[in-house]
């Protein structure tokens, strides 16, 4: 079971919800931090990191002994990652999307692949909560391939909770695609609602069931709740604005640990999600 926690707008509480839900479940669960540009979940879960591995993507390596400078490689590349200049082939690794087109098209077999480092994957655990995050190398532009590698390391035997990046473009899609449920975390403000609407459009495009957590539910206005009703989005949990929670967060402390009465509420949140996934599965199998 894969639950992806997303939001559209940044800073609404994705990491808080992901980490606290994982802690409330306690075992048989894993937390994947897919916000590889700014990974934060480890600051709150505080896992023991057991190993790290570099993540590379393939990029072309041209053997100039074999190359006839026919330009077929630079012609096929839609990303302008190759240029043939006189008796040289320039490879702009950071523009390469690793499609392998140049290697496939080269009539001389002069192109092989080498690796370019995107970032690192960290593997760890806190008790029986498995933890993986990706850290994009500073200066690297492309996060989706790294997000896909974090996803590929998931353990299908466990409940997988994904902490997704903000936004609605390709990195978020990489963190949501193929999930069984998207949990949207929002705040009842004009910015929160505007970005939520965009994110919900993205979820609809993927055809995944979705529910809402409204964080700091007592600030702003009521429009997000009206929107939830009109879009038939279940509000699965609300959290009030509480200065004690905000201060605990600022120190890296977790709600379920500081305020134990919340443990049960996060478990209930998971139970509601599980029920929706179960109902969706039944509806799908009936439809078939």
């Amino acid at each position: 079971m894969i639950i992806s926690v997303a939001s559209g707008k940044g800073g609404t509480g994705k990491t808080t919800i992901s980490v606290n839900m994982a802690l409330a479940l306690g075992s048989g669960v894993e937390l994947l931090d897919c916000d590889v540009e700014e990974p934060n979940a480890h600051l709150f879960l505080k896992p023991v990191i057991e190993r790290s591995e570099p993540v590379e993507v393939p990029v072309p390596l041209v053997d100039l002994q074999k190359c006839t400078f026919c330009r077929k490689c630079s012609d096929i590349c839609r990303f302008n990652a190759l240029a043939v200049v006189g008796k040289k082939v320039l490879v702009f690794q950071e523009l390469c999307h690793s499609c392998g087109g140049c290697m496939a098209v080269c009539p001389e077999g002069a192109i092989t692949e080498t690796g370019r480092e995107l970032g690192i994957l960290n593997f760890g655990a806190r008790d029986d909560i498995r933890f993986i995050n990706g850290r994009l190398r500073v200066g690297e532009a492309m996060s989706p391939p790294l997000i896909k590698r974090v996803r590929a390391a998931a353990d299908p035997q466990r409940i997988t909770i994904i902490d997704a990046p903000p936004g609605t473009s390709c990195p978020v899609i990489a963190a949501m695609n193929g999930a069984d449920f998207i949990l949207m975390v929002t705040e009842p403000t004009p910015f929160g609602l505007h970005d939520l609407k965009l994110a919900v459009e993205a979820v609809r495009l993927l055809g995944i069931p979705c529910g809402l957590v409204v964080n700091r539910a007592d600030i702003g206005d009521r429009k997000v709740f009206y929107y939830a009703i009109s879009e038939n989005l279940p509000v699965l949990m609300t959290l009030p604005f509480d200065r004690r929670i905000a201060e605990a967060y600022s120190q890296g402390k977790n709600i379920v640990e500081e305020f134990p009465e919340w443990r049960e509420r996060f478990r209930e949140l998971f139970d509601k999600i599980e029920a929706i996934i179960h109902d969706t599965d039944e509806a799908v199998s009936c439809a078939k």
Partner: protein
Amino acid sequence: MREIVIISGKGGTGKTSLTAAFAALAKNSVLCDADVDAADLHLLMQPDVRQRADFMGGCKAHINLDLCTSCSTCIDLCRFGAISEQFRVDAIRCEGCGVCVDFCPVAAIDFPVQRCGEWYISETRFGPMVHARLGIAEENSGKLVSLVRKEARQLAEKRGADLIITDGPPGIGCPVIASIGGATALVIVVEPTVSGIHDMERVVDLAAHFKVPGMVCVNKFDLNVEMTQAIEQLAIRRNVAVLGRVSFDPAFTRSMVEGKTLFEYGEPTATQQQVRDIWTQISNSPSMNTLGIVDLKSTIQ
């Protein structure tokens, strides 16, 4: 021409609220929303759109099943798993590399260019604004960011404005890299939390990589004064000028609900004065010299 870009690393620290407040204080400036992925500045600026244009991004493959001979060459070559056994292209997985298009032996694959979004030139009560909307689930956000920044620059030149205020995106990836290259200075808005300082450090590393001068302000500083001090110390170590502190103030949310900037909401407050002082610091900073020359002494280390 000078351009300040407001970034944060972490999302939700108050970039857009502060950008809008700066816009209310600035004179003769052009506004630019470079957070094309989840643009919010227009909610406070209520821009009157005068000009709109399509943003054309990359291409995506489309298989013409009438011509397809089911040879599977495309499936074998596609590294993104975007082509199904039934020879349908999953538009979300398609990377737009065109390898299938070039290798199809019967030329059954079309490769139409995609409309990936829209961009606008608008008028607001604080001057002209360039902004955009990236299509849902689209790629090429970096390209669109570069485009809106270029248009903002041209507009500023045309209007004789000598300052561009750019609201940047969160993170450190493609759209952020596109937002900060060539900026006169960055204003980094940080919240005093463990994640705020962690993410600030990564965005400072990125800015150092691009040799851009930077300044920092701590928003909601009173949520954790110790962390605020840690952030300011980190800033000093990295040659980032400390601009000041802004209190946690519900007036930001209340003014947002009314579609206003902080300065258009209620009676003058202490928070308004904090933001005003920060704006004065930014305006008088050596890196914001009127010549628009990059101040090498103030680049982030």
